[in-house]
Each structure stands twice: as structure tokens, then as C-alpha cells.
């Protein structure tokens, strides 16, 4: 165990980790800039008013938290079982936590938007329901990680759960879709990307880029801290 830590850093030295490095700084600026553009420099939707602009943070967060984070979690868990590289375990841990964050944003901004367009805070619409289940799944994954003492066991057991979770996702989608298929969803507004006028489309695309940058920047910081934390634990154990 101590040897694998030594391959990453010199023995006795802690790995480098800065809370805000250049990449994160740039992505913070990007996200703030896109928010400013969305709020003040993008036209207001005629039917829904200003609340429609939540779309510019809600959808990019969903792409980052649902597709990218959960995809990374699944792949790194399966690869860890095969390759046993602790960096894969740190990637899994980081994608779970940062993914939970972004999915949380989706689950809070979604109802705010739904309230204005559909009149209710919650609606059992296919995608937000799947997001809720995935959020709970990833939360369970993180609780499991917190409950296992030994780092090797933690990596191995959470990789097992991560791999099974990867298999579960298509089943959740199918279940929710089948369920929604029986009860027609709201007719007023489809949550799919509507055909957007050019200024809104530009803002939307910029938002996707900014949020993806932020996601990867946070992922990197989180992984670096995990390496620092593990190296410290190994140092203190030795």
C-alpha cells in the first residue's frame, strides 16, 4: 500500500494540491460570464418570462452531473476492478461527489422552473425522476465509501457498487419511460431543447462549455485532494 503512494510522489512528501488553480479560476470566470450574459444580455422568453433562463444553468448541469459524472463513475469503477489502479478509484470518488453536486443543482432548479411552466413544484416527468433516482444511488455510493475503514477495501467494494450501478442506469431509464408512457406528461411545455432563436442558442452553447469546464476543474481539484488525503493517511500510519 505504501509503495503505490510512493510511485505518485516522493516518499515522505505530500502531493501538490491547490484549492484554486489556473484552470478552476478560468472556469469560474466563464460560468460567471455566462450567467451575466444569460440574465442581462439574452432575450426573455415571451411565454414563460425570465424564469425560462434557468434553462441555461439547469441543462448544462444535467449534462455534467448526469451524463459525464455518472459515465465516469461507471467506467472508472469497472476499470478499477480490472486494473486495480488507485487513480481510477480517486476518479470514481471525485466524479461521484462532483456529480452529486451538479445533480443537486438540477433537482433544485428543475422544480423552480416547473413551478412557472407547469404550475406544480414536482412532476413525475421521466428525466427528473431518473435524476432523482441516480442522485440517491450516488449518495448511497458515497455513504458506502464513508463506511469502509481500509482504503483498499473501500476502493474494491465501491468499485463493485459502481459497476452494478452502471448496469442499473438503463433499467431505471426504461422503468421511468414505461411509467411515463402510461401517463401523458405535461402538454404545455416540453423539456426537450426547443428550437431556439440564435441569441438564446449562443448563450445555451456557451453555458454548456462553461459548465463543462467547471465540472472538470472541480473534478481535478477533488482528485488532487483525494491523493493528498490518502498520502497523508499513509504517512501517519507509517
Amino acid at each position: 500500500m505504501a509503495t503505490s503512494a510512493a510511485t505518485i510522489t516522493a516518499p515522505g512528501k505530500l502531493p501538490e494540491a491547490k484549492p484554486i488553480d489556473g484552470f478552476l479560476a478560468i472556469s469560474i470566470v466563464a460560468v460567471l460570464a455566462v450567467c451575466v450574459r444569460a440574465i442581462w444580455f439574452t432575450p426573455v422568453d415571451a411565454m414563460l418570462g425570465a424564469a425560462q433562463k434557468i434553462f441555461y444553468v439547469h441543462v448544462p448541469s444535467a449534462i455534467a452531473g448526469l451524463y459525464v459524472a455518472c459515465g465516469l463513475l461507471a467506467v472508472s469503477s469497472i476499470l478499477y476492478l480490472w486494473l486495480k489502479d488507485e487513480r481510477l478509484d480517486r476518479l470514481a470518488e471525485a466524479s461521484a461527489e462532483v456529480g452529486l453536486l451538479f445533480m443537486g443543482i438540477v433537482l433544485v432548479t428543475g422544480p423552480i422552473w416547473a413551478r412557472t411552466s407547469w404550475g406544480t413544484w414536482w412532476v413525475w416527468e421521466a428525466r427528473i425522476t431518473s435524476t432523482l433516482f441516480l442522485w440517491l444511488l450516488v449518495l448511497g455510493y458515497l455513504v458506502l465509501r464513508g463506511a469502509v475503514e481500509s482504503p483498499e477495501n473501500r476502493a474494491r467494494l465501491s468499485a463493485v457498487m459502481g459497476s452494478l450501478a452502471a448496469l442499473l442506469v438503463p433499467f431505471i431509464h426504461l422503468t421511468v419511460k414505461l411509467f411515463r408512457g402510461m401517463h401523458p406528461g405535461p402538454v404545455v411545455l416540453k423539456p426537450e431543447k426547443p428550437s431556439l432563436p440564435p441569441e438564446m442558442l449562443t448563450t445555451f452553447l456557451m453555458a454548456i462549455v462553461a459548465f463543462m469546464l467547471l465540472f472538470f476543474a472541480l473534478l481535478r481539484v477533488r482528485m488532487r485532494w483525494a491523493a493528498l488525503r490518502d498520502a497523508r493517511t499513509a504517512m501517519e500510519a507509517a
Partner: protein
Amino acid sequence: MSGGAPKPAVLAPAFLADALRIARKDLLIEFRTRSAFMAATVFAVLSVVIFRFTWDPTAIPAFDLAPGVLWVIFTFSGLLGLNRSFGLELSDRAYDGLLASQVSRESIFVGKVLANLAFVSGVQALALPAVALFFDLHVGSAWGVLIGIVLCASLGLAAVGTLFAAIASNTRLAELLLPMMTLPFFVPLVIPAAQTSAYILRGQPLEDAMPWFKLLLAFDLVFVTACIVVFPYTIEE
């Protein structure tokens, strides 16, 4: 059992025999104390009574409420049984003894799944008639299909639940962790089962509920296989 490379013709019966032996051992231990089974059945019957007394028959017909009740009971009484699944060996480090024997990891897993399957089916054998009785359900010829649905769902629950019980037994908060980890996995199992039984209890033929039933069967197929494959990774080298 000889070490070395067993011939395939000899391997299959040995695997099954080992699994059945382990299942029998687990069930015998449970049968002697009966504590988990009692807890699960008492829970099931109490739940039925509570649901019955909080139900307004004029507002909701029985066949609309009963599937939900049935499958909630199924899920939580199943969890009660799963908790004790690996706890049996943890005392006296009997698990290490089991692992050191010639028995393959996969047959340990299948054996425990079979034991849990028997447990869950046993509880359902009591809960189903209780629900039918208290909610005055006219099941009639649909009993066969209903039992089939329960068995299919029990298989999926037993496979996934046993695997997560193995994981949870390595942790400090096993009783809290097991429901937290498994409930999202039970969703694509319990919802199709509930929907299919809703169709059946309303008197519709199984063909109408085929999409749901096929989803249930697909879940069983995929997850029983996956859990068998992944189980050895839950064991420390």
C-alpha cells in the same frame, strides 16, 4: 472434491451441490432461531393491518391499493431477511473458514441467494393471502400468475440483496447501509412487479402487462448473472 483442474462434467453438479449445501445450512440456522422470519412476518401482517385501516374503500378500489401494499411489504420484509444473511458467519470468523474450504466463491453466493430466496418466498407465502384476505381481493384464476410474479421478483431481490449484504458486512453501519444501497436497485424490480400485479388484479390478461413483465425478467437475467460475476470481488484477498 479433488483439487487441480476438475473436468467440466464433474464441475457443474459439484457447484450446485455446494450451493445447495450452503443454502441448507443457512436455512437450518434460520429455522432453529426463526427470529428474522418472525420479525419479517409480523412486520408484513402489521403493515397489512395498518394499510387496511387507513384505507377508504369508497375512494380507492382494493385492486388499485393492494399492489402498492403488497410490494412495499415485499421490499421491507425482504430487507429484514437480508440483514442477517452474512451476519451469521461474522461471529467466530466462520466466514474465513467457509472461504478456506474447497467451495468456490460463486457457489457460496448462489447458496446464500437460494437461502434468501426461500426466506423471501416464505414471507410472501404468508403476506399474499393476508393481503388478499384483508382487502377482499377476488384473485381467482390469477393466483398462478401472481405467484409467478412474486417468485421472479424474489429472485432479483435475493440476488441483488445478497450481494449488497456481502458488501455491507464489511462496514460499520451495515443495517443502515443495506437499505440505502439496495433501494435504488429495487426500483426497476418492484415497480414492474407492482404494475404487472396491478394488471392481473384488475382482471386483465398478462399480455397487457407484457412490457412490464419483460422488464422484470430482463432485470433478473442481467442482475443474477452480474452479481454472480462480481461477488468474488467483495471478498478480501
